[in-house]
């Protein structure tokens, strides 16, 4: 024990020597229990380690929880895939935008569809397969199919399968039938918009109509969820088409066309050309009868040009509507041609009567006073002589002609000058809307240019409106059948002989361009009948009397059809029927 104590003291001394901070003047001291201190220090360091471990554990689990929390949060904030517009297998993403009418009614949409292809190597019992195909698809040639099967190369059995065909093939349970997914364009209204919408090819490229004109826009993936809205109205389109179909039956015409346009904005509400075709069938239409008569058809439209002649004469202050032109002959010689009237007319006619009674010679005389250059410029201003800008590729180009002898006189009443019905309707819009040129359009959100070009003054336009109304209301007018109660219709008829290879035939092309309601001109309706025949069985309600006739002028067919159309579409266009309102609607005082 003593030995141990001595050793301890020596150790202490050594330590005290080592200790540099040893204070020699230190008066007090204490004893330190080294064993206990060491144990305490050990314990403390152990507890530090243990705490660190717990902290690490906490930190580790905190990280894990944070990761999962972030995941949950990100899932909850994630936009559903179907709203993202990204291409994936679950959500069908069309390659082309929808097309709708002005009311949002769908008129064209892409859907998933299939081609049926065959891998001959995978077909075990080829005889049985051939028999099944024969039973289900009798239209498929067995010989050709057999050859292809023996060839052992991948081939298409049928493209663009309908749902029924797809089901039939699926039920065969044949491994060798491969269903190739593709997209096809469906038009729910089938033939209703055939001349406007056009078609697309197998690769979803527009090949005609609106589909071609707006091809890039329709394929714009950024806007794929937004439909392309057209100015057309399905209900109006249907009613116009139905009446025109009836007119083809009534007048045994080979074709008919109708155009309804807003005269202020140029929005085309209805564009019908008959005969039409079902665009879903994707048939190759090449016959000229199927031409879009409104935009592509180039016609001599006859007397509708008299309105332009008289408007220009009034605009140039050469005449007033009441100026009487005396001694108008019943026919005049012009170069080698004779210009005559369609009917016997009085020798003295006012300018207004020339339009109302549709005098050819009267118009020719007025045109002479206007002069060739002015007249030509006016027609150019009205964009009647060149191809019109419109949202279709199928546009007709008016036939160029030389302004030689007598041309001015004949052109003044619409003879020897061709244009498209769309151009004529647009020119009538300018005549009646206060004199502003409008750009016909099929696109709803397109805004009309504010700086619209003016072709005639507001005063002239008002005079023209009064005269056009008289064409319908006057007892000498040529369009009495369009005097639809309450709709204040005005317009001008045009009866023209069709020209085949430079020769005029007895076949007619009857047109009526109407504007309504004339107290506030809003719409222009053009009705065109191609080669109509007299309809002696048809009973007309003519100025309060029921009559039948064998006449075949525009006033007896195109006007009649236009009247029927206006009667039906008028209420849809929500035209205030002032005649009814002013006479029969009791005004609310309070």
């Amino acid at each position, binding site marked *: 024990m003593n030995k141990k104590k001595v050793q301890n003291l020596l150790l202490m001394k050594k330590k005290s020597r080592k200790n540099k901070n040893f204070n020699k003047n230190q008066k007090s001291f204490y004893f330190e229990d080294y064993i206990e201190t060491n144990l305490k220090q050990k314990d403390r360091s152990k507890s530090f380690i243990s705490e660190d471990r*717990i902290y690490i554990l906490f930190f580790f689990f905190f990280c894990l929880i944070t990761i999962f929390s972030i995941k949950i949060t990100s899932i909850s904030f994630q936009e559903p895939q179907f709203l993202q517009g990204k291409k994936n297998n679950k959500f069908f993403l069309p390659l082309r935008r929808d097309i709708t009418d002005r009311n949002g009614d769908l008129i064209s949409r892409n859907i998933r569809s299939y081609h049926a292809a065959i891998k001959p190597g995978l077909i075990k019992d080829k005889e049985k397969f051939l028999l099944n195909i024969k039973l289900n698809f009798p239209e498929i040639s067995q010989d050709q199919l057999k050859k292809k099967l023996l060839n052992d190369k991948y081939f298409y059995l049928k493209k663009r399968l309908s749902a029924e065909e797809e089901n039939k093939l699926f039920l065969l349970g044949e491994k060798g039938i491969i269903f190739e997914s593709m997209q096809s364009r469906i038009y729910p209204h089938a033939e209703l918009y055939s001349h406007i919408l056009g078609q697309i090819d197998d690769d979803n490229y527009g090949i005609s109509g609106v589909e071609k004109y707006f091809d890039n826009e329709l394929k714009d993936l950024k806007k794929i969820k937004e439909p392309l809205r057209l100015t057309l109205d399905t209900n109006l389109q249907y009613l116009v088409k139905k009446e025109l179909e009836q007119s083809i039956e009534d007048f045994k015409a080979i074709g008919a066309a109708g155009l309804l346009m807003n005269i202020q904005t140029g929005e085309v509400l209805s564009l019908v050309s008959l005969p039409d075709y079902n665009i879903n069938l994707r048939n190759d239409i090449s016959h000229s009868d199927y031409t879009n008569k409104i935009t592509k058809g180039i016609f001599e439209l006859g007397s509708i040009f008299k309105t332009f002649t008289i408007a220009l004469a009034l605009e140039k202050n050469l005449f007033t509507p009441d100026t009487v032109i005396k001694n108008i002959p019943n026919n005049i010689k012009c170069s080698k041609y004779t210009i005559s009237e369609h009917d016997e007319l009085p020798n003295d006619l006012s300018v207004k009567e020339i339009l109302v009674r549709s005098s050819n010679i009267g118009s020719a005389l007025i045109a002479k006073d206007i002069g060739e250059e002015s007249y030509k410029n006016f027609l150019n201003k009205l964009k009647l002589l060149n191809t019109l800008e419109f949202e279709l590729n199928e546009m007709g180009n008016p036939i160029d002609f030389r302004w030689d002898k007598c041309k001015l006189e004949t052109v003044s009443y619409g003879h020897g000058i061709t244009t498209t019905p769309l151009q004529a309707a647009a020119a009538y819009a300018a005549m009646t809307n206060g004199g502003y040129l409008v750009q016909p359009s099929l696109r709803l959100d397109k805004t009309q240019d504010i700086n619209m070009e003016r072709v005639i003054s507001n005063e002239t336009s008002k005079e023209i409106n009064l005269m056009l109304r008289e064409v319908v209301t006057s007892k000498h007018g040529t369009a009495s059948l369009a005097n639809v109660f309450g709709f204040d219709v005005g317009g001008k008829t045009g009866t023209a002989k069709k020209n085949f290879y430079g020769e005029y035939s007895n076949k007619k092309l009857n047109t009526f361009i109407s504007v309504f309601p004339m107290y506030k001109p809003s719409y222009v309706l053009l009705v065109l009948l191609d080669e109509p025949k007299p309809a002696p069985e048809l009973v007309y*309600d003519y100025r309060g009397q029921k009559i039948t006739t064998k006449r075949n002028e525009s006033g007896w067919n195109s006007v009649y059809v236009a009247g029927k159309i206006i009667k039906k579409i008028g209420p849809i266009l929500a035209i205030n029927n002032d005649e009814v309102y002013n006479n029969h609607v009791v005004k609310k005082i309070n």
Partner: protein
Amino acid sequence: MFNKKIFISLIVFSILMTFTSIIKTKTRIIEKNVLTYEKKIANLQNHLYEAELDYYYLSSPKIISENIIEYSDEEYSSVDYSKIYFSLDQFLNEQKKSTKSFINEKEIKKK
């Protein structure tokens, strides 16, 4: 033998482990549900997409007119403003007119 600190550490570890695994499982379930719902939505969306096409086809004026003719007992026809009479006198005047025109029609036939 019995180390209190290790015991606490283990308890803390197991509590956190359980908690984390619950969160993990819940997350997985939620994720699975999201995927299932997305599939369902996709299905419905695709059905709706094609049903819309059917709707616009079936509600097109042509089909509605055909269906009315085929299935409805009611006969619909458009009424002209001229056929709406606002007084008895007006109606009687119109009737007279019709009679006149009827006579005219007879005359036309006779001719």
